[in-house]
C-alpha cells in the first residue's frame, strides 16, 4: 500500500491489514530526521509500537508489525528488509487467523466433496 508519508498510516489501517489476511505488516518510511513532512515517520513509529503491543494482547504476536526506515534511493536495502522480514515471519508461521481460516475452508471443501 503506497502513501505519501508513513504519517498517513493510522492504527486502523494496520489492524485491517491483518483482518484482510496479512501474516506480517511492514511500515516502511524515511530515515528519522529526513521526513519531508517533518514528523510523519515519528508518528508512524509511535503508532507501530502501540499496535504491536496490542497484537501481543490479542494473541497474534507483536513481531508481525514492524517499522523500517530507509531513504528513497535505497532500493536494494528495501529488498533486503523485505526478504529478511519475510523469512522471520515464515519462521514464526502464518498468522493464527489465517490458519483457522484455511482449516475452515478446507473442512468446507471436504463437506462439499462428500456431498
Amino acid at each position, binding site marked *: 500500500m503506497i502513501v505519501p508519508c508513513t504519517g498517513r498510516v*493510522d*492504527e*486502523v489501517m494496520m*489492524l*485491517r491489514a*491483518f*483482518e484482510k489476511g496479512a501474516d506480517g505488516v511492514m511500515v516502511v518510511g524515511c530515515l528519522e530526521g529526513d521526513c519531508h513532512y517533518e514528523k510523519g515517520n515519528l508518528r508512524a513509529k509511535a503508532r507501530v509500537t502501540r499496535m504491536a503491543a*496490542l497484537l501481543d*494482547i*490479542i*494473541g*497474534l504476536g507483536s513481531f508481525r508489525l514492524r517499522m523500517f526506515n530507509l531513504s528513497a534511493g535505497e532500493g536494494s536495502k528495501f529488498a533486503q528488509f523485505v526478504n529478511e522480514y519475510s523469512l522471520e515471519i515464515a519462521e514464526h508461521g502464518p498468522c*493464527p*487467523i489465517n490458519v*483457522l481460516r484455511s482449516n475452515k475452508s478446507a473442512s468446507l471443501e471436504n463437506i462439499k466433496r462428500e456431498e
Partner: protein
Amino acid sequence: MIMGTGKPLDELLSMLEPYNKIILSGCYGCVTVCRVGGEKEVQLLASTIRLARETKGEPIEIKEVTLERQCDKEYLEAMRSYIGDYQAVLSIACGAGVQFTAEKYNLPILPGINTDFIGVTEKQGVWAERCQACGDCVLHLTGGICPVTRCSKSIFHGPCGGSSKGVCEVNKDIECGWQLIIDRLKMLDQMENYTKLHEMKRWKFSRDGGPRKIVREDMTE
C-alpha cells in the same frame, strides 16, 4: 465535556462472549473530543475485537456506526432500520448515551467505556475534572475555582493541614484546590471571600437528593 476511558479489552471480550453479531456504536459528541468514542475509535475497537475473537476461533461480525449523539432520541432513531438484525450493541458513548439507547431498543446494550467526569482539555491528550454537577454553584465566591471538585475533601474552608507546596496530600499530581483558590482570590483582590463562614452545603440539589430532572415549562407542550 463528559470524559471517559476505554474499558480493558478482556472486560469487553468477556461481555461479548454470548454474541457473534453486534453493532459497535460511537458518538460525535463529547467522547469524540476526548478521543475515546468517536468514529476513529469505533473503527479501531471494532478491528481489535474482530481480530481478538477470530484468534480465539470465535469470529464476530461487527457493524460500525457513529451517531451524531446518543443522548437525543432523534439521533438514536438512525439505527432503527437495521438494529433488529443484531444481537447486541456495544456503545462507546458516555453512560447517558448507553442508557438512552437501552431505553429505546429492546436488546442488550453494553458499555464500552467507563464514563469518568465533566472536565476540560488541559492540553492534547490530557483531560481533567472540573465540575461535580452539584447543582449549587459557588464559583463566584471562590475566584472561579470549584472547592467541591478541585479539593479532594470538598472542603469549604481550606486548605487542610495536608497541603504542601501547592500539592494535595492524596497524590502529587493533584494540585491543592485551596491553594489555587487562595492564589486567585489574592490576584482578584477578593480575600474577604476567604474570611466568610459558609453555610453547610445543600447536597439536596446534587445527586444526593435523588436522580435529577430539569423541566422547562416554557419548552414543554
